[in-house]
């Protein structure tokens, strides 16, 4: 693996074996994360973005879930290269919280209500750094200070319910960063928060990334947040990556019809003065994961759908130049304006 890279995921497949059939939640996803960069994974519900992040932590509930294929190379803090898909549980336990940390959408449910926040932050420090409880609590107070919680020493003895949603998310971030991870996985970290609080948390994450230098895998459905946070973007649809590019081309020159559709369907305040009368919605619904459409899973909703071409084979991920990847057989035609929309 390239030295610049921290993570390299190749052809990851996570399937869920349910009574109703096999759900291919993630079906052949590849991406990489460079050191110190933020990769955003965008998608709607059911696209497989959260499952991808859980797979990297090896937290897929099994049964019914299983990583059925692919590689997840990760360079640990000790410099060793590991395939997370194959490591045993003991090794994973050393990696989790230490090399890779995770913050979740719901700071309410991901903190333990019966322990103080000090105890919860200290737990990981004691476990991974072998410090005494007293030292760990001191470090926990420093972490709370770092994430902008006033009077951190006093706050150590607070329980989660004594804090607001924004404060709890700060505690989660403090906990995640307490062991200096090289990768922070943030799964919709601001979705449950009000916009003014979201702005605070995003600013905080950017500031901490500059100071600590960790990479971030940012999972979200909010395109505004992506534009703000990401260096590169992977767009997922129905378990597959359909486009991958640097953040500016993703927004300025999207190649996949789904990405274009998503961008057009968001109401934009900055265009308020000139906006058109109607939003351009993507017709139809997200497909049922138990019976995905044949060929390109997006074809029933795509305005560039061509019978006999799009509904026969799953398109390969192609390089459109400069590392801009797209999974659409008609992307070149569409770019040239030759593809006729249905």
């Amino acid at each position: 693996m390239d030295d610049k890279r921290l993570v390299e995921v190749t052809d990851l497949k996570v399937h869920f074996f349910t009574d109703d059939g096999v759900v291919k939640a993630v079906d052949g996803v590849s991406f990489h994360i460079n050191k110190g960069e933020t990769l955003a994974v965008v998608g709607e519900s059911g696209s497989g973005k959260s499952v991808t992040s859980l797979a990297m932590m090896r937290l897929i509930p099994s049964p019914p879930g299983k990583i059925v294929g692919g590689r997840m190379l990760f360079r640990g803090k000790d410099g060793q290269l590991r395939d997370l898909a194959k490591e045993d549980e003991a090794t994973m336990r050393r990696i989790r919280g230490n090399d890779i940390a995770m913050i979740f959408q719901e700071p309410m449910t991901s903190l333990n209500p019966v322990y103080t926040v000090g105890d919860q932050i200290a737990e990981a420090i004691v476990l991974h750094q072998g410090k005494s409880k007293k030292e760990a609590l001191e470090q926990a107070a420093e972490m709370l200070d770092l994430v902008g919680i006033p009077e951190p020493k006093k706050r150590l003895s607070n329980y989660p319910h004594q804090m607001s949603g924004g404060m709890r998310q700060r505690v989660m971030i403090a906990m995640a960063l307490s062991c200096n991870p090289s990768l922070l996985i943030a799964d919709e970290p601001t979705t449950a928060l009000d916009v003014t609080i979201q702005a605070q948390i995003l600013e905080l994450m950017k500031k901490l990334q500059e100071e600590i230098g960790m990479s971030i895998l940012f999972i979200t459905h909010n395109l505004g947040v992506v534009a703000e946070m990401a260096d590169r973007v992977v767009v997922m649809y129905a378990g597959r990556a359909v486009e991958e590019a640097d953040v500016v081309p993703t927004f300025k020159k999207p190649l996949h019809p789904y990405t274009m559709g998503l961008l057009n369907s968001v109401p934009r305040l900055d265009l308020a003065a000139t906006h058109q009368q109607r939003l351009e919605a993507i017709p139809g619904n997200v497909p049922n994961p138990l019976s995905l459409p044949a060929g390109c899973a997006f074809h029933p909703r795509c305005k560039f759908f061509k019978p006999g071409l799009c509904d026969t084979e799953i398109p390969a991920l192609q390089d459109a130049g400069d590392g801009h990847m797209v999974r659409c057989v008609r992307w070149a035609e569409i770019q040239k304006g030759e593809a006729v929309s249905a």
Partner: protein
Amino acid sequence: MSVAAPDTTTTHLVEVTHLKKWFPIRGGILSRVVANVKAVNDVSFGVKKGEVLGLVGESGSGKTTVGRTILRLIEPTEGSIRFDGQDITHLPKNQLRAYRRRMQIIFQDPFASLNPRMTVGDIIAEPLVIHNLEGSAKARNERVAELLDLVGLNAEHVRRYPHEFSGGQRQRIGIARALAVRPEFIVADEPVSALDVSIQAQVVNLLQDLKEQLGLTILFIAHDLAVVEYISDRVAVMYLGKIMELAPSRDLYLNPRHPYTEALLSAIPTPDPTVKRERIVLQGDIPSPINPPSGCVFRTRCRYAIAECATTVPELKEVAPGHFKACIRDDILN
């Protein structure tokens, strides 16, 4: 009554004056009221016939309580609600029903707001039965088919159950149910917040079409300013139970005059990585509505706050034609 000063050229279908809703907190052995959650604290506004009034605010701002109080799903503590000229604040239940037919609600959660044991046909027909409309079963069925068609669902879906539909389709069912009794006024409480981005646009477009087609008056409640700006003619911004600013929607975005609106707008991330704006990050959290700050409720997080803000409760006053703000500082954001 600076706000509710009626517009002489248009009539208000709904008019709310000095509305208050305090939820008591009881404590002690005698269950005495020890404090009040001041969810809505002196709010006045009108919704003109045929307009969409957006109501935005963060969680705890009281926007949902306003919507439900107007429909008398929650009884107001003080103030009055007028619908089509009639004061309905204290109307007894039997008389209220006639008004209920004329005002309906669409809920946020398309999963929780549909009875899982009823078919789609029964769900949509229920308000017709309750209000004794359309008489025969045959006429009702025809009306249901017509409604399904109106919201873009297939009329063959009548016999299906809610779980067979996706979130966006369920929200369409909720809309069809609300429209069944041919209401004039609809409270749409976060109707698209639970939906995926690509589906959200479909439902926003549907609401816009229905408004045109049926001449509906809508109170559109949401926390997403971009969606609200898109669909609304005018927008009211709430914070801690009070209206901070009320203006025509484009005007509000292009020229916010209240410090809270200014900060709220700047907090919204723009889906364009090449735009780099200077952001006003509000410090701290929204204070508790049990014990809101004295004077202006926003002053504790306001970057323009002066000593006087702690003592004077700002009136909502007109600062430009149709543009109201509740802020004593006339020297800023003009």
